[in-house]
């Protein structure tokens, strides 16, 4: 039997999805019990998804992480956070829309929320600079993080950026300095921090809000030192080798878990987060609550020590003789 391609599998999934809907519709109309039929269809649906999932290449996952319908930070804010109070501005230059900051709560848990925002419509995307923050975005995040530290609020960050903005203005205003300062301060911030990669974890731009005590990544998100396209352009001298580069970079959630960089993978609903944003949001919400409860019980000095060691232990090297 010839293996089906990813596209063929996707079509089959859609077909079965429609069949399920049809049967469900029919049940509602005439009230006849078709549970056996439905069970068979649903099992088939899940089996197909499982097959599809196992066939995804790292570059397919990168494309899923960038999917135009993928839920973004703003979607999760509205689905997860109660009483969100947005806080703007870096007090130096401006208000970068690529990073949203604000106070929020989930039940009893209150926290500072920071998330990178890409935008959905063309207008939004341009306003958010496609999720590529400028130095003022990192400085805004830092200013709010200092506020959280002062008032004893934990911090939750959602990471979703292709990378920090590479342009003239960003360099003039000290992009490297801004990111360095954030990493440096976050390593020592006397309050618990939870990081979750929800889409793209693009290099230093992601790390600029990506230091913490807990690190989770969505199943079809990625986190990498360089974009597969950028890596291919440098090492293969050809951007068309992006798929090979994505494999070589080992940037998927599974890789990060294996490397000990991520603590946990948050599984995505069948067909990825955009197929069922609500289910994805619930799972993120549960993770946030669980982490905040756990971290609250740890004395801050111990927390800072283990945060330090979390980074100190990463990376392999050999010492000869």
């Amino acid at each position, binding site marked *: 039997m010839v293996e089906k391609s990813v596209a063929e599998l996707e079509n089959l999934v859609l077909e079965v999805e429609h069949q399920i809907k049809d049967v469900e519709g029919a049940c509602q109309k005439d009230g006849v019990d078709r549970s056996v039929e439905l069970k068979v269809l649903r099992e088939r649906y899940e089996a197909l998804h499982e097959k599809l999932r196992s066939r995804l290449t790292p570059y397919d996952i990168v494309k899923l992480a960038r999917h135009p319908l993928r839920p973004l930070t703003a979607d999760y804010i509205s689905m997860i956070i109660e009483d969100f109070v947005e806080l703007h501005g870096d007090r130096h230059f401006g208000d970068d829309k690529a990073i949203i900051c604000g106070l929020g709560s989930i039940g009893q848990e209150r926290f500072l929320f920071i998330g990178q925002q890409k935008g959905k419509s063309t207008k939004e995307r341009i306003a958010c600079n496609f999720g590529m923050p400028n130095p003022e975005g990192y400085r805004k995040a830092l200013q709010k993080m200092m506020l959280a530290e002062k008032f004893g609020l934990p911090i939750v960050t959602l990471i979703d950026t292709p990378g920090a903005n*590479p342009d003239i203005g960003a360099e003039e205003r000290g992009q490297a300095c801004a990111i*360095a300062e954030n990493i440096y301060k976050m390593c*020592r911030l006397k309050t618990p921090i939870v990081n979750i990669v929800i889409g793209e974890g693009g290099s230093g731009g992601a790390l600029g809000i990506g230091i913490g005590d807990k690190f989770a990544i969505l199943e079809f998100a990625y986190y990498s030192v360089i974009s597969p396209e950028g890596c291919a352009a440098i090492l293969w001298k050809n951007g068309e080798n992006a798929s090979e580069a994505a494999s*070589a970079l080992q940037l998927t959630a599974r890789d990060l878990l294996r490397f000990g960089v991520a603590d946990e993978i948050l599984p995505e609903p069948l067909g990825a987060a955009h197929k069922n944003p609500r289910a994805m949001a619930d799972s993120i919400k549960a993770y946030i609550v669980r982490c905040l409860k756990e971290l609250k019980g740890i004395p801050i000095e111990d927390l800072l020590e283990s945060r330090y060691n979390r980074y100190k232990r990463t990376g392999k090297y*050999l*010492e*000869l003789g």
Partner: protein
Amino acid sequence: MVFFRKKKDMPNGLWVRCDGCKGVVYKKTVEERMFVCPDCNHHFRIFSKDRLNFLLDENSFEEFWENMVPCDPLHFKDRITYPERVAAEQKKTGLKEAAIVGQGKIEGKPVMVGITDPSFIMGSMGAVVGEKIARIAEKATELRLPLIIISGSGGGARMQEGVFSLMQMAKTSAAIGRFQDAGGLYISVLTDPSLGGVMASFASLADVTIAEPRALIGFAGPRVIQETIRRSLPKGFQTAEFLLEHGFLDRIVHRQDMRKEISKLLDYLQNKK
């Protein structure tokens, strides 16, 4: 040892062409001036060992952890494998890795020193560079000595070590953080080129930041920016002078004055704790 461009039309070894003014200059004069062009003051790229010789008192340098070599955690292969690339770079440069760290003296004053060498895989930071920089910062904290790190990195984080190299930005920044908390003096010296992950971590976190004239310094490389914005970059963009003008450097210091200037800073900024 210096990155003199090999030009076929150059009479062997006596003359070099300056990358700055494109003029032909007498090699010996350039060498005597610490590889700085006598006509236009262009600072040639030099090897880390030469820099240490220029900066430190004679025979005062003791290298630490010199036998640390990279692993290949991703089994990375592009057109060649990562171990092949490392072996080739080791052969080319005589270095084991891009960073050298250790202890030395400047006009009799003991200091901890780290340096990254752009001739070794673009001076990019993998696990060895990250670990060495973090360890030297820890050692400086423990011994309460000033820390001087000379950066030269066109690559930033090392792609071949994937996300592990990204984590070195966190590792080095965290170690510098502890050093700062303990009240240590950290001087960062930026040389041509200092870009990417190195600039977005330890190189930008000093008490005093100085650079050599006209060194290329920034976050994104100029080619990446040009390809993104699709127009030409302003003259002098991302040079040391550009950074000074925008408030990101304390001083620009000529290579021949570097040792004297750093010594003066060490005198002024002594730890009174």
